[in-house]
């Protein structure tokens, strides 16, 4: 099946290379130059993926995400500038799945788009009882984690955090989201907990905890799990 992708971006030249990059990935690409046109296109084309610029001239990208999320769960990649962390967080909290910081390369864009489309396709599949990354294996049925064959002891919170990250494999999860899901809705003030526990997980699961390969920090925004 050919994946349909909608690009909502006001700069023609940026649209042009995003289109080239995605068509190279065998996607069918549609374009919109603003929020209103974007919503209309999304309604008629039913895209499998949306690439959305946050700085649109005719409206707020975050409103677009909220609108779209009302009736579609197509993954959304947000394009934004560095130093706009609050905008990124707002977009992710509103339901965006990933972001790219301008300027970005074609390779990065293709990789992110591929990951999200793959996840989208797999959504219907029965959940696998096992997950492996690096030399780590997670057995969900027995709640067991092994690294290079050796069992690794995780506390209940560490395990819950790891499962949440794996479940959203490839997606950026904001601090606030992780806190709410793992520690409960009353814990939004304790944002340092997430950092401390991610640190524990890295020490137990990463080859070099100071240069993680799987539990990645999205500075100022949150975390991303990458198998």
């Amino acid at each position, binding site marked *: 099946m050919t994946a349909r992708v909608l690009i909502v971006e006001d700069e023609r030249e*940026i649209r042009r290379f995003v289109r080239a990059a995605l068509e190279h990935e065998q996607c069918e690409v549609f374009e919109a130059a603003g929020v209103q046109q974007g919503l209309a296109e999304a309604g008629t084309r039913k895209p499998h993926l949306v690439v959305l610029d946050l700085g649109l001239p005719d409206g707020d990208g975050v409103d677009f995400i909220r609108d779209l999320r009302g009736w579609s769960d197509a993954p959304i990649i947000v394009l934004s500038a560095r130093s706009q962390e609050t905008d990124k967080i707002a977009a992710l909290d509103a339901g965006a799945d990933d972001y790219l910081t301008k300027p970005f390369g074609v390779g990065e864009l293709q990789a992110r788009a591929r990951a999200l489309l793959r996840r989208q396709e797999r959504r219907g599949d029965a959940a696998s009882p096992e997950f492996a990354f690096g030399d780590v294996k997670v057995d969900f049925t027995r709640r067991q984690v092994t690294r290079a064959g050796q069992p690794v002891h995780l506390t209940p919170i560490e395990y819950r955090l790891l499962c949440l990250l794996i479940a959203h494999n490839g997606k950026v999860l904001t601090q606030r989201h992780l806190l709410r899901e793992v520690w409960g809705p009353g814990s939004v003030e304790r944002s340092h907990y997430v950092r401390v526990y991610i640190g524990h997980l890295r020490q137990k699961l990463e080859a070099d905890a100071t240069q993680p390969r799987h539990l990645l920090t999205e500075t100022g925004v949150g975390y991303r799990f990458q198998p």
Partner: protein
Amino acid sequence: MKASDWDGAFMKPLLQTLNGLSAGRKLAVAALMCGATTLAAGPLHDVLDLANIVMLFLLTVLLAAAALGRAAGVLAAFLSVLLFDVFFVPPRFSLAVQDAQYLVTFAVMLAVALITAHLAAALRREAHVAARREAQTHALYELARELAGALDGAQVDEITRRFFRQAFAIDAQLFLPDTGGALVPATPGAPAAEPILARLAFDSAMTMNDDEHAGGRYAAAWLPLKAPMGVRGVLRARPLDTEADTLHAQKTLLETAASLVAIVVERLHYVDVAQESQVETASERLRSSILSALSHDLRTPLTALVGLADSLALLEPPLPAPALETAAALRDQAVRMHGMVANLLDMARLHAGQVALRREWQPVEESLGAALNLLRPALGGRPVRVNLEPDLPLLELDAVLMERVFCNLVENAAKYSPPGAPIDVDVRRCGDEVVVAVCDRGPGFPADKSRLFSMFVRSDNAKPGVGLGLAISRAIVEAHAGTIAPEDRDGGGARVVLTLPVGTPPAVDEEPA
């Protein structure tokens, strides 16, 4: 008795003349008045009854007390009784008294005279006080009226000086805090030194008297300008008339006047504050909108450039190898240019004091790890060894900015050391600080390290870059109350050491394992 009764054409100047006499002269005048009454009544001795002559003496006492005050009145009372006895009561010209009933006359006469003297003097004093108070109230009212129109400190000073000179015969000088908080004269052109008594009065909010020169030519009182929200300055009052003890006598008046001045100075202060913040908000808004417009306008074409250059590699059929190389070079240059633009904008923001730190408690290795992850493509497989002391405390950092610092430092280390040579990052705790050292085996820093962290300084002009990286790093670290310093590494190479204060990290409840 009303004031207007006294207000005759000649009574007023006469009374004023009498008032101006010294105490001794007043007594002499009272004695003279009694003598005159005796002389006047002498020829009438045969015509008038003695009781009526007593009346004349009582009138004299009343006049003396009213015009000359209590002491003169009392003297006149005793003198009158004495003169009456000697010159009018038989036997005349002797103190002896024939008829014992005159003793009663003397006693009553003395009592009436004393009481009259007392009442008249009290009345006189009250009239005097009331008149002075009225004049003062009027003067203060005038001062308040003039000050209400004052627009700045210099005007307040000018009005106050003029006013104190005219109304109170006092040389006044305002001392207002300058931008640095030092109390300096508000008069334009006056030497800007802070007198110690002004500081004392300002800090203690109490009037300071210059005791050393009390009563002399340089006697002065330093009055704090106490306004509702605090002390706003100091008023120095020096009497122009060096003989009278004006400062002490008019203490209350001076304080009232000072509080009037204080309220005006405070009003001006808040007008200034309001205006300043208005101007500041406006210029801040302008600056940040220029910066964000600039960064948006520069980033958009650069993003397109990077992406378009990249997409050349996707063309079918593929471009020849030289064309692809050119495309890659285009892309690299655009990325570098974006880096420079970002640095310039960051520096502009940091310099304008625009960056509000978004500090959160986190392990320092998190920003470090994120920076290394970002740099991985640029480092091209060069090893980075991170030596992390275990159990480091959480630090309150702005993660985005600290990531910039680590990126800059590691990138610099890579730029100035031979390809493939490892970079070492040591992180350890040292007392109340966490020390991060980024070390390379490059040529090291030049001997003169003082300007390395200034803007646009590079230690090797052949290397690319605008030389903003270290300046930005310093600005960010200093915003975190930390320090950053270049050092020579033992065994050759450069070492940048940054320290970050530990603070009091929040607790993390350990869950049961």
